[in-house]
Structures are given as C-alpha cells and as structure tokens.
C-alpha cells in the first residue's frame, strides 16, 4: 500500500524579513507628509508678520486683517462665486442632458457621442482656453469676422457668463460621467414598472429617471463648483483685461506685483480658499453617503428599452455635433491655425500669411525647448512614480489591517479639492523651510514634479479603487492562508490582477501631468520651466504664435497618448470620477 499523500510534511512558512506593518506605516507617513505637509507652512506663513525666509518675525493675524480689509478681495470672491455657480449650472444641466440622450434614447450615433463628449476634460485646459481666446476672444478670428464684417452680435467670452461657458465646456464631462454611471447602474425594471403602470416614455423620463439622477447631479455639481473656484487660466487670461478679478487671479497678481515679495496676505487668501474647498469636499462626502439610498439593487443593464426620439433623432444629434464643434474642434483648429500664420485675421486669407517661425521658436528658444523637455521628463517619471505609489497606498487603504487605513481614502482624494495654485504656494513654502532638500527641489524640475504628482494623485486612486473593489478579498486571503505575507500576497496576487487599472492610471496621469500648470506658476525658475507655466507667462507677455504652437504640442501628445492607451490597454473611460 502506498502512503497517502497527506503524510508528507513541509517546512512551515516563515515571517517575511520586512514586516508588513513597517511598509504600511512608511506608506501612510509618506501620504500624510505629501498631502498635509505643504499646508502647514502655508498656514504658518499666513500667521506671520513677514515672509518665512526673513529671520525674526512674530505670530500675528495681520495678514488676514490686511486681506479682509481689501475691498478688491471681497469683490473677487463675489465674482468667483457667480462664475462658479453659473459654470456648475451650465455643466450639470448640459452633462445630464447628454448623459440621458446617450444612455436612455435612440439618439443617432449615441455611442460615438458618449466618447467624444469626454474630450474637453482630457485636452490641455490652458491650451483650450488659449484656443477659445484666439477664436472667440476680443479681437479673435471669428469675433472679428462676425462683428466687424457681418455686424452680428457675438459671444463675449471675457465676461463672467462667457468665462463660465468656457469653463463649463471643460467640466461638463464630469457631470456626464456621473450621470451616465448612475443611469447605467440603475435598475431598468424601475422604469419598466412605470411603463407597465401606463406611463408614456417621456413621462417615465421625467417622473422616474430624472428624479433618480438627483444624487448624481448634486455630487457632480459640488465637484464642478469646487473645481471652478480653483480656475486660474480663465480669470487670468480672459478676466484681467476686462478688469474682472477672481480670487485665484487676485492671489496671483498680488504675489507677482507685490512690492515686498511673497506677502503674507497671499498665504492668508490661500488658506481661506483651502478652507472653502475642504468644506465643499466634506459636503460632497456626505452627499455620497446619502446617495446609497438611491441605489437600486440587482440592476441588469444593457437591456433597457430606449426612449424613441423619432423625428428628433437626427436634429438632436446635429445639435450635439454643433456643440462639440463649437466648444472643442473650433478652439483646437484656431490654435492650429494660429501656430502657422503670422497673424490670424479674417482680413487676409490665412494661406498668404503662412509661416513656420512659431514652431522654430519651440526648439530655438531655450525657455520653450526646456519646457518641452522638462514636461516630458516630469510626465513620464511622475506618472510612473505616482501610479506605483498610489497602487501601494490603495492596497494599504483597502487590503490591509493597518490601524489608520481608513484615513487614506480621504487623504488621497483631498488634493482633488485643493486649487492647484494653493498646492503651488504650499510647496513653495515647504521647500523654503526644508533646508538643503528644499533647495535642491527648488533648483530642479523634481520640485515641480512632486507638486504635480500630489495634485494629480487622486486621479490614480479614483481609477484604481473601483478595480480593486472588484477583486474579491478572498483571493488575497487565500494567498495569506497559503503562507504568503501581506507584501508577497499583494505583489504576486493583487497587483497582477490590478494591472489594467495600473496602466489606465499611468496613461491618465501622464496626460494630466504634462498638461498641468497652476501648481507650477510660483515654482518655476529659469531652467525648470514646464509647458503650461511657459504658455501662461508668455501669453500674458503677448507672445501668441509660439504659445499656440506649444499648446498644439500638448494637444497632439494628449490625443496620441490617449489613443495608444485606448488601443493597447483597451482603456475605456468609465464612471471613474464617481469614486472621487
């Protein structure tokens, strides 16, 4: 008789050399340092009577009193809030309408629209603002064509409603994604039940479908409101000439024009903005909690009866096409045209003014050339590093027994609510206070990279968390039971299964980092320029042609990388924003 296989014994598994808790603590400490760290010197700077780099100084509330005593500051807040409210209104209503059209009706080309509508949020935001200015701004190509030649009224994008329209066209995809996710998750039998009860399709839409969207609308609205308060490019480039100042441009102007550099009142204003953004984030967290009661259980999507638009099927598709052409294609074409002509004017045919001089500037001018090189390095290294680190932190947050794991999701989403300009000021002070380390960061591109990485880190978490949540926890428990420690289980079982999300996160971060600019405006120095910051400063100085060429570089890189990402890794943009 052979022995039963069970009589064989094996060595017991051993403890791993680096204990899991050490790794988890290290990860948590890095997250806290990077996300909370920069705000501590910021708050400190706002409470001192002189800049941090000057010796001496006492704690005082003087910066706040200076700031609050300035009528222009309150005026800037009023402008900002009107702008943010209008932006939110337009983006949420528009996004919800497009989401309903694309998921619940038989609109012609609904799938294609569902993808194209996402472009504005992925394209470089500053570049798109420049595109709008070139085409629709005061003296822009189409503006002069319509008003000067045809004497027709045109869109005044240098007014608050106009700026809101520009910003809304960028942020509309957020509302679209949120509503689309809510609609495709909702159980269509709720709608079927209303149909059976005798309601006509349109009535079902208004009485069932749209009310169910309410939490999604609130959630998207809060995020869009928060993001539009933080807008910097729009008020700086469109508002300043018309003397419309927002909080962000107020802080920017005060900082750059101040007689004593880096005044405390800017830090005080930044702290106030941070407080508003934090309150909005907390509000949004509560809204997300309340949303659970609208989640219908057991929804089977994909077999919903679509609302038939009949004769509106094509006209509505036409309207949507017009919207996309107007808000996305025309600004991009404007940029492209601008980068190839001496002046863009309806008075002279563009081909008579053709030039490649603007493009030559990109490699002949040191600042432009370095910007491209630096941005490319920062985007590649930053996207890799952030993705790797966030993957680890997400595992600690959701797949470990680490004591403070529950603080990580909030921490990792926090920079999403923080205006980029404030992250920039925070890192500026943090580098100033950290001696040799801070100096080396300020003198190299890595300082800017770190600020960009922290700013965009929430996106990596938003992409990875839903995928991780779908990987059953029993899979890693099985690894632990088999004798592998936390890190080995994470490395050999969880991370390989997370691969698609890791690639998606890399692509998204690369695109976001290469197009980012506002955290860098206070950090750049000669030698550490990045594309966005260069575009902003050069455009303000009136260099339009080469800036358009640089913006086109961003647009082309963005589109190519996204296309590769979509093709190679089959990345579909889903309702990822929801997790935020």
């Amino acid at each position, binding site marked *: 008789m052979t022995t039963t296989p*069970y009589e064989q014994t094996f060595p017991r*598994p051993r403890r791993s050399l680096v204990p899991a808790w050490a790794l988890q603590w290290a990860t948590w400490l890095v997250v806290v340092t990077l996300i909370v760290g920069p705000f501590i010197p910021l708050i400190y700077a706002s409470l001192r009577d002189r800049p941090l780099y000057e010796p001496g100084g006492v704690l005082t509330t003087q910066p706040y009193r200076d700031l609050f005593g300035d009528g222009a500051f309150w005026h800037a807040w009023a402008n900002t809030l009107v702008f943010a409210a209008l932006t939110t209104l337009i983006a949420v209503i528009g996004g919800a309408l497009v989401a309903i059209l694309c998921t619940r009706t038989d609109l012609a080309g609904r799938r294609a629209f569902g993808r194209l509508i996402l472009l504005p949020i992925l394209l470089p935001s500053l570049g798109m603002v420049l595109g709008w200015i070139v085409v629709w701004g005061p003296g822009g190509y189409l503006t002069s064509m319509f008003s000067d030649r045809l004497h027709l009224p045109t869109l005044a994008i240098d007014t608050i409603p106009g700026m809101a329209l520009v910003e809304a066209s960028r942020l509309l995809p957020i509302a679209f994604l949120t509503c689309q996710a809510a609609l495709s998750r909702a159980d269509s039998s709720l709608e079927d039940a209303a149909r059976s009860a005798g309601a006509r399709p349109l009535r079902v839409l208004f009485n069932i479908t749209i009310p169910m969207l309410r939490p999604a609308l609130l959630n998207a609205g809060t995020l869009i409101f928060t993001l539009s308060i933080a807008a910097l490019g729009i008020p700086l480039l469109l508002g300043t000439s018309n003397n419309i100042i927002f909080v962000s441009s107020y802080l920017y102007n005060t900082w750059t024009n101040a007689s004593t550099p880096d005044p405390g009142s800017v830090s005080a204003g930044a702290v106030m903005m941070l407080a508003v953004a934090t309150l909005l984030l907390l509000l949004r967290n509560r809204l997300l909690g309340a949303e659970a009661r609208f989640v219908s259980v057991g929804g089977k999507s994909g077999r919903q009866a679509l609302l038939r638009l009949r004769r509106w099927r094509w006209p509505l598709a036409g309207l949507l096409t017009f919207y996309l052409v107007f808000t996305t294609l025309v600004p991009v074409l404007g940029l492209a045209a601008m980068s190839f002509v001496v002046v863009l004017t309806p008075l002279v045919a563009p081909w008579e003014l053709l030039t490649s001089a603007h493009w030559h500037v990109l490699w002949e001018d040191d600042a432009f050339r370095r910007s491209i090189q630096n941005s490319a390095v920062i985007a590649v290294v930053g996207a890799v590093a952030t993705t790797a680190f966030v993957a680890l932190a997400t595992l600690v947050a959701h797949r470990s027994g680490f004591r403070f794991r529950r603080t990580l999701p909030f921490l990792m989403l926090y920079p999403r609510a923080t205006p980029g300009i404030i992250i920039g000021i925070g890192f500026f002070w943090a580098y100033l206070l950290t001696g040799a380390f801070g100096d080396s960061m300020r003198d190299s591109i890595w300082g800017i990279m770190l600020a960009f990485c922290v700013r965009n880190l929430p996106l990596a978490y938003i992409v990875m968390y839903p995928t991780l949540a779908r990987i059953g926890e029993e899979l890693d428990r099985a690894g632990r039971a088999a004798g592998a420690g936390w890190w080995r289980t994470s490395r050999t079982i969880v991370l390989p299964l997370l691969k698609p999300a890791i690639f998606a996160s890399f692509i998204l971060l690369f695109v976001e980092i290469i197009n980012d600019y506002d955290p860098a405006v206070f950090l750049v120095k000669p030698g550490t320029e990045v594309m966005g910051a260069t575009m902003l400063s050069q455009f303000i100085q009136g260099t339009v042609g080469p800036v358009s060429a640089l913006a086109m570089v961003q647009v082309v890189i963005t589109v190519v990388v996204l296309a590769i990402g979509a093709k190679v890794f089959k990345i579909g943009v889903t309702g990822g924003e929801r997790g935020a």
Partner: protein
Amino acid sequence: MPEIRVQNLVKQFGEQRALDDVSFAVEEGEFFTLLGPSGCGKSTTLMSIAGFQQPEAGLIAVGDETFFDASRKVAVPAELRNLGIVFQSYAVWPHMTVFDNLAFPLKVRKLKRAAIRSRVLEVLELVEMTPYETRYPHQLSGGQQQRVALARALVYSPSVLLLDEPFSNLDAKLRERARAWVKELQHRLGLTTIFVTHDQDEALSMSDRVAVMSAGEVQQIGTPEDVYRRPANRFVAEFVGRVNLIEGIAARIGGGGSVEVEVAGSPLRLTVSTGHGASGHVTVAVRPEAVTLMPFDDTSVNGINTWDAEVGTVAFLGDHYEYEVNAGHVPLTVQSSRLVPGDRIKVHIPPGACAVVE
C-alpha cells in the same frame, strides 16, 4: 495532534455583538460543522480561526500552538498558521494556471522546483484534476474550480482544513456529488475539518458533530442525530429540519422521566418520554415524519398521544404526502408515506419522538 480549541470568543462589530462567548473543541480527524443562518457568527468564527479577523476576547489554539489569546495579546498572522482553507468563491487565482495555483504555497515554503512539481502532480491526482494542469481558472467549470481550491488547500499538508460554504455556488446535482466526494476525501486523509454552512442537509449528512449557532452564540453542540432528535432549544428545533411546536403546561411527572403535558387551549394531553423533570410552561417539538396517521376507525394503536384530527390540506410531494391537520385546535404538519382516506383521521405522536425545547 491537531485538536482545535476555541474558547470564549467575543467579537463586536460596532454596536452589534457578532460573537458572544463562543467555545468548542474539535477532535483530531473530526468533521466539525458550524451551522446557522446568515449573520449568526459562523463565518466570523471561521475567519477568526484562520486569522483574518481578530476577536476582542478569547483563545484559539490548534494542538499545542496558541494562535490567538486576547489576554496574552497573542495573534499569529494568518500566513503563519499553516491552515488549509477553501473559500465560498473558491478564490482560485485567475491569473495563474492550475499548476501555478497549487505551486504557490510550496514556493512560499521554499521547496525545490522538482519537489514542487512532484507534489503538485500528486495532489492533482488526488483530486482527479491531472489533465487540467495547464488550464486557467476561467477555462474550468465551477466543480473543477472547487477541486483546484481544495487541492491548493491540501498541497502543503496543513494541520487543519477550513471550509467556508464551499458548496453554495454549485447547482443541486453537482452539490450532492461534491459533498460525498469531499467527505470521502476528508475521511481517507483523516483531516481535522471545520465546515461552515447554512444548509442543514449538508451539515447533517457530512458532519461528525455539529455546532448550531444563532445571534453570535452556540446554541447546541452534538452529533447530527442529537441536534435533530434532541434539540436543546426552540431555535435549534426550528432551524434544523421542520418541526411542530406544541405548547402546554407540564402537569404530572410519570415514570422513567416522562412528563404529561396539558396542551394549551385544548383538552388534549401529550406524554413526553424524556421530559427531564420539566415543569411549568413548556414547548414540545415533534418532527412531521415522526407523527403517524391512521384511518379514523383504526383501533390498533390506543391510549396515549392518539388524537382525533380533521384533515386540512394534503399535498403530494413525490416520495411522501404532506398533511396539514387540526387535532383539537392543535395544528400539525405531518409527513406520511401513505395516503390515509377520509376527512377525519387519527394521529399518533410517539412519546419518544417528543422533545421539550423550552
């Protein structure tokens, strides 16, 4: 060696007490089942043994190794407990082949390549999955995945096997075959096993002993016959199989521990042979198949516990008939292998088939 001791486990989830002083011991080679409805704490108990959850108080030991002892702050990490576990979802790693799934625990134990290979093949043969060595999990059926999961849990000869509802994802036919197969394997290998299920058939047919749990507490521990025939309380009687509950007052103690119960709201009397000196208000449990039905004019069984009854409904269920009858305001469900004619019949409840549960 592997005698499992679980003592006084307490686990709190927020306000709710998930485990409330749970204790039991499992003998070497025993097939021990934790049975109960969802939320009763059976999975929490199993996960505490495996090391995936940490109770607030209590002790868990296997053989002479203490895995968890709240009073001495001992908590061995899950990966060092050397237990085999099969999860409800099987948790076969989808990005590894069957071979790699089985090889992983051996790699962790730093075995040589050749040793890994021969051991994996040996265990694959044991679970009859040799031809599927190079397949990926998505290419396997549910039953095959379950075998892989079991093989992976056995490949490193763990001291104890833990099964967390492993059959609930299989269809009815396959489930029965899988049960018999797992039971046979467990018996052949002499594996000490703790099995968690909410399915009483599974618990009764496979176990050496069963612990019935409810609301975080162990209600009864005993052999399948014990918990079925002599339920310790009303919950066990109702959860393990179907039951008629008859309420009344214990009136008179008879000989040999028997008790006569005055049935509430009726003039009937019920004699219970093992009343254990019950007194006052009692509830008596009687299984539907223990009750016998006779034609109204049948006089072969007489006297005690034989009542006249009116037939309510009769349902044909293939291998038996199910009667809903009414014996003097006492509703009874009766399972009968034969059809008894007439609207009025006689029912007989054997005193030995009655258990006082309250």
